[in-house]
């Protein structure tokens, strides 16, 4: 996972993480993954991803950070 494909949204005020994620998806090459780090499961983002042909999987770290991996379906 390269640095530029990771968005750490944990210290950002909503909706900044969503704006950054949507912007990053614009330039995400097919087959590549984007990693988003948050303290919550971003349900609004999931809805947008699903309707626009992206898949995602998430896992929670022990400190409560949620890792969300996003790629084109």
């Amino acid at each position: 996972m390269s640095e530029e494909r990771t968005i750490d949204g944990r210290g950002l005020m909503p909706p900044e993480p969503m704006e950054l994620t949507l912007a990053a998806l614009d330039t995400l090459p097919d087959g590549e993954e984007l990693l988003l780090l948050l303290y919550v499961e971003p349900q609004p983002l999931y809805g947008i991803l699903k309707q626009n042909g992206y898949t995602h999987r998430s896992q929670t770290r022990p400190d409560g950070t949620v890792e969300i991996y996003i790629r084109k379906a």
Partner: protein
Amino acid sequence: MQPGLSFEQAPPISVPFRFFLTAPLFGMAAGLLLLWQGPAALASRWTSVALALTHLLAVGFMLQAMCGAMLQMLPVAAGANIWQPRRVTQLTHAGLTLGTLLLLAGFLAEQALFFRIAVPFMTVSLGAFALIVLIALFRTPAQGPTIIALRIAVFGLIVTITLGATLATGFGWQLALPLTEITHVHAAWGLGGWSMLLVAGVAYLVVPMFQLTPPYPAWLTRSFSITLFFLLTAWSLTWLPLQRPDDLQVALACAAALLAVVFAVVTLRLQGQRRRKVSDPTLLFWRLAMVCLVVAAFAVILQQMNPAEEDYVGTPFLLGALLMVGVFMPVISGMLYKIMPFLNWMHLQKIGKPGLVVPNMRQMIPEPRMMMQFRLHLAALLLLLGAVPLPFLVYPGGLALIASCIWLEWNLIVAARNFARFSRELEERLAAAEQSG
């Protein structure tokens, strides 16, 4: 940025706005009632004035805003879709607005007729809301402590509605019911089972999100809602008309109050550890609410330990002011100042096109205006608490409450007007871009 992405899951913006714009009106009405009745409003929790006042704040302000937020939050934050959102919204909003007026008329005029209308009307509208929301919460694929807390909270709302309807039936048809016992349990589920658990469930999401704190510790989110639910259930059973186990009842009430203290202290600690040490109105409202929750919980414990003090007339007013004006109104005001700008932003995204920048969330309500309402609300709270030893303070307290609610209403109107203005501007720019392109 790709604003072409769809935001279809969110209900129309008018769905939550109508609840949010109605709630402060009932807060103003509560202030007016305080001015009209003066120190008489403090006489006892059982007077018609005290009951009217309680329901203006609990149903008119709190439940109104909470239902609007719930209808908005479920699809957006929990991935749970509401069945027939428009109809459910209309029915719930009518049930809350007319229902509050019916209860107010019933208590103040002491007319059975109002309760006879209120019982079927509020049971159907609010009961339908609760059931539909509960079903949505069980059907969502989302998981986690927020969903669990919200499910229990809505169950708590159903208990509150059922007991409230029972009480109103008692008033409406002059039935010989154990009104005192039912009222205690009704109030405990309304404030503890529904409101407190809703706040907790929402806090797990929004405190880290909007106040930039570390997440709530898992030991708390895993156990808080379920423990409070069992304590409340056990406590309620001690009110059944059996040989009443007094000691057990006191122990359970104190345990529930201590649990609330734990939640409040954890929240205050998290807020102290936030990454950006900037204060915003929402943070101040929430910190005030958590401090009041600690004070209210210790007041409950003191009252439980000294049953003789229960009849001291100031106690119910003190607890009511602490919990409703000190805890839940600030939590709700603070949340509205995040929800309204966020909804504006999200719905404006729907209009946008690539290259078109949508106004920032901070542009929706000017921060100094929100800070002003915080100060007014703090003044209202302190004056109303001061009215317990110095009853004449109820007059400036009532005035400050009205001022705080007028300020809140105006700030929310500003947000709604900014949404209309920004969406018009976006559409004009879109049209211009299409013409030139």
